[in-house]
């Protein structure tokens, strides 16, 4: 069966510091991968998606970036965090082609102070 992992689970960072969140998927190959952000009491905002290694599409302009160095690894980064980057970050995967169901990881809660 497939599993998706995210770490860290919780992170407190000062404004202006760098960020690296990691997501890995097990039990599948060549998944589509997604990063979402969820503010408290709000819906999910798609930040990035990837259909393959090195292929990243950005949905919203921001000071975040994403990379996919390996087939089942997806990384969310920032060089300098802003207060507005605080939120709950969720990684998701789906099968390629017509398998559009997305399965989410446990999330990382980020607080920028």
């Amino acid at each position, binding site marked *: 069966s497939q599993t998706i992992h995210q770490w860290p689970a919780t992170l407190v960072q000062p404004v202006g510091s760098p960020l690296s969140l990691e997501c890995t998927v097990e039990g599948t190959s060549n998944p*589509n991968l997604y990063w979402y952000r969820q*503010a*408290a*009491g*709000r*819906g*999910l905002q*798609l930040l990035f*998606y990837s*259909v393959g290694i090195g292929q990243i599409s950005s949905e919203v302009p921001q000071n975040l970036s994403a990379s996919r160095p390996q087939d089942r690894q997806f990384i969310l980064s920032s060089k300098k965090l802003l*207060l*507005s980057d605080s939120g709950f970050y*969720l990684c*998701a995967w*789906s*099968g*390629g*082609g*017509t*398998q*559009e*169901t*997305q*399965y*989410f*990881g*446990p*999330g990382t*809660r980020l607080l920028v102070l």
Partner: protein
Amino acid sequence: GESVGLHLPTLSVQEGDNSIINCAYSNSASDYFIWYKQESGKGPQFIIDIRSNMDKRQGQRVTVLLNKTVKHLSLQIAATQPGDSAVYFCAENFGPNSAGGTSYGKLTFGQGTILTVHP
């Protein structure tokens, strides 16, 4: 920053009652719909899905209804239990046509509904 005073729709029910959560979707070209359940501090959990060639689909204690005429989706939970308390999101997928024939599974999520089940 976040909007102050933003409230998600809420539904409060008694344990054992049936619950109906509604969702209006935006794109008449959407051909795939999913309901997710999100408990506090956790990632969304897949509940049930339905494709646009169907009007109804049943799972264990849950039923999804799709009305394409009015672009409306609903989730019915039978015999609601306290463990069903969570935020419920609907999501729609525009399908392959919007991407030149390649479906990359991009979903658009609704804002969510808070379900509270009282013992």
